[in-house]
C-alpha cells in the first residue's frame, strides 16, 4: 500500500522511471531478438536444405566464413559411391550487385536448378529461377534497395532479372541470392570448381559409412552430416555476434541497475522522515527493506509491461527502416528478460536498503 502510494505520489517521476526501465528492457529484448533473427537466418539455408551430407574442401568447416573449392569432376566420383542417391554441386561466392542507387554485396549461391538442391529455402514473392538470366534475392535485401520482382540487377557485366524474393536467407550482415550453377561459374571465371556438394543418401543407409567412403575416395575433402554442419555454422554465427551482443546486453543491464538504484535511493532519502516515523512506531526490521524491494519490483514490472507494449511496434518500425535487421522474438526470450529484470530489481534494492540502516527512529524527536 505504502510502497505503491509513495511511488505514485510523484507520478511524473514514476512515469519517467518506468519509461527509462522500459527502454532498457526494449534494448535487451531487441538484442536477443536480433541475435535470434541473425542466428536463425544465417543457418536457415542449411537447415532447410534437406541434405544428408555436406562435402567441402579439406579444412573448411562452414559456408559462412570459410572458402571451399572442389573440382567439378568430383560429382561423378560421388555419385559412384555406394549409398549416394544424388550429389548436387553448389558454388558460393561474394559478389557486388549494382542496384539503382548503390552497389551492394550479396552472397551468391549458384545451384543446379534441375535437382533444386541448394536453392532458396522458400519464395515469398514471384517464383524461383528457371534460366541463367534470372536471380532470386533475399526479401530484406530487396526491400532495403527497393528492388521488386521483374527489376534488373547488374553483376559484373551481366544483367539479371529478379524472378523472385526468398526468406530465411538473411544473415544480418549479408544476404543470400540465388542463380544457376552455370551462371555462377561464369561469374566466378573458373568453370572447373564448385564450393560444396550436397549429398542425399538412400533410405536406410548409415551416413557414417558414406562419409568414410567419401573421405576415402576424395582425400582432399571435409565431409559432415547435416547436423554437424549445422552446428559448425551455428558456432560461427555465435562466435561472431554473441560476444558483441552479450556486452551490449550487459551494458543495458548495468544501466538498468544504476537507474533503479538511483531512483530508489532518491525515494529513500526523500522519505527519510517517514521511515524514521515507521521505525519509531514499531515497524519490523524487514518491513521497510521489504517495501523498497516491492517498489523496485513495481517499477520493474511496470517497465516490463510498457516495454512489451512498445517492443513489437518498434520492431516493425525498425524492420521497415532497416529491412536487413531481422528481429525474431520468442516467449523464451521474454521469460528470460523477465527473470533477468527480477534479479536486477533485487540487486538494485541493495544500495537503498543499506541507506535505511542509517535512519534512526530518534530523528523524529529532533
Amino acid at each position, binding site marked *: 500500500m505504502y510502497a505503491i502510494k509513495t511511488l505514485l505520489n510523484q507520478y511524473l517521476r514514476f512515469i519517467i522511471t518506468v519509461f527509462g526501465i522500459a527502454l532498457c528492457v526494449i534494448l535487451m529484448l531487441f538484442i536477443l531478438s536480433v541475435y535470434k533473427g541473425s542466428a536463425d537466418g544465417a543457418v536457415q539455408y542449411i537447415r532447410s536444405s534437406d541434405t544428408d551430407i555436406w562435402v567441402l574442401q579439406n579444412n573448411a568447416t562452414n559456408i559462412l566464413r570459410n572458402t571451399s573449392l572442389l573440382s567439378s569432376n568430383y560429382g561423378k566420383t560421388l555419385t559412384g559411391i555406394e549409398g549416394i542417391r544424388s550429389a548436387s554441386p553448389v558454388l558460393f561466392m561474394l559478389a557486388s550487385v549494382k542496384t539503382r542507387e548503390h552497389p551492394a554485396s550479396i552472397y551468391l549461391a549458384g545451384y543446379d536448378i534441375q535437382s533444386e538442391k541448394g536453392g532458396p529455402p522458400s519464395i515469398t514473392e514471384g517464383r524461383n529461377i528457371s534460366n541463367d538470366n534470372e536471380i532470386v534475392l533475399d526479401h530484406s535485401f530487396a526491400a532495403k534497395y527497393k528492388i521488386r520482382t521483374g527489376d534488373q540487377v547488374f553483376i559484373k557485366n551481366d544483367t539479371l532479372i529478379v524472378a523472385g524474393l526468398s526468406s530465411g536467407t538473411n544473415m544480418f550482415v549479408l544476404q543470400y541470392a540465388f542463380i544457376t550453377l552455370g551462371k555462377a561459374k561464369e561469374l566466378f571465371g573458373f568453370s572447373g570448381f564448385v564450393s560444396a556438394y550436397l549429398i542425399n543418401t538412400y533410405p536406410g543407409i548409415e551416413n557414417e559409412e558414406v562419409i568414410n567412403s567419401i573421405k576415402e575416395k576424395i582425400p582432399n575433402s571435409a565431409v559432415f552430416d547435416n547436423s554437424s554442419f549445422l552446428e559448425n555454422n551455428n558456432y560461427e554465427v555465435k562466435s561472431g555476434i554473441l560476444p558483441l551482443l552479450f556486452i551490449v546486453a550487459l551494458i543495458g543491464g548495468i544501466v538498468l541497475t544504476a537507474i533503479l538504484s538511483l531512483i530508489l535511493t532518491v525515494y529513500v532519502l526523500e522519505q527519510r522522515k517517514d521511515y524514521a516515523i515507521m521505525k519509531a*512506531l514499531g515497524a519490523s526490521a524487514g518491513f521497510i527493506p521489504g517495501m523498497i524491494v516491492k517498489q523496485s519490483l513495481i517499477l520493474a514490472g511496470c517497465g516490463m509491461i510498457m516495454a512489451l507494449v512498445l517492443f513489437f511496434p518498434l520492431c516493425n518500425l525498425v524492420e521497415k527502416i532497416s529491412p536487413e535487421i531481422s528481429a525474431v522474438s520468442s516467449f523464451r526470450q521474454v521469460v528470460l528478460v523477465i527473470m533477468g529484470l527480477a534479479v536486477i530489481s533485487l540487486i538494485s534494492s541493495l544500495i537503498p536498503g543499506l541507506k535505511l540502516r542509517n535512519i534512526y527512529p530518534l530523528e523524529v524527536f529532533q
Partner: protein
Amino acid sequence: MNGSLAQMYSVSKTFNRSGTKTDALHNVSFQANAGELTLLLGPSGSGKTTFLTLLAGLQKPTEGTITIFGKNVKDYSSRELQILRSRHIGFIFQTFYLLDSLTSLENVMLVMKFAGISKNESRVRAEEFLDRFGVKHLGNAYPKTLSQGEKQRVAVARALANGAELILADEPTGSLATQQGMTIVHFLKEAAKTENRCVIIASHDERIKTFADRVLHLSDGEII
C-alpha cells in the same frame, strides 16, 4: 496491565558530542502508572524529549535503570523493543508526523499492521477511533488537506488504536490553537481514565496542568 508500567531509577543520560559531554537527564526517578496522566513540564532543552525516548526504549540510559513492563530496558532485544513499540506504546508528536502519501484511515491502520493486527480488524478499529475523535468523515482525506487540529486528532487515533497502554506525547499542543490543544489533552485524559492507559505528556504549556494527575517539573535534566 495495571499499576506501574514503567519505572526509572536514578537515571542519567549523557550525550558526548565532539568530545563535549552534555547531561540531558541527571538522577531522575519516576514511576509511570496506568490510569494516570502525567505532565512533564519544562522549557526547551530541559530534557523532556530525552525522558520520553528513554521510556520508549529508543535509547538506553548512561546510568541508572529503566524497566518497561517489568523488564530492564537493557535486557530487551531490538526485536522485542520493536514489538513493544508497535503493540504497547503509542506516540504523539508536536508536528503530527502523519505519512503524507497515506490517507487518515491508512495512517491509523499502518500502526496496527506493525502490531500484527489483521487488515479487516485494523480497518474497523481505525474507523472506530477516527469516529471517536470526530474525524471519521476524513478517513479518505490525505494529511495535506487537513487542518492542524484534524491532523492531531488523526495522530491521537493512531496512538490509541492499537491498544497501547503507554502513551507518550511530545508537545502535542505545540502546533495547535488553544481550544484545539485543550481538546486533544481532554481526549488523552479520557483515554487514561476510561481505558486505564498511562499518558505522559511532555510540554511547556502550563495550561495542561489542570488535566494532569501528576506534574513533574524538569529543569536542566533534573526533576525539581
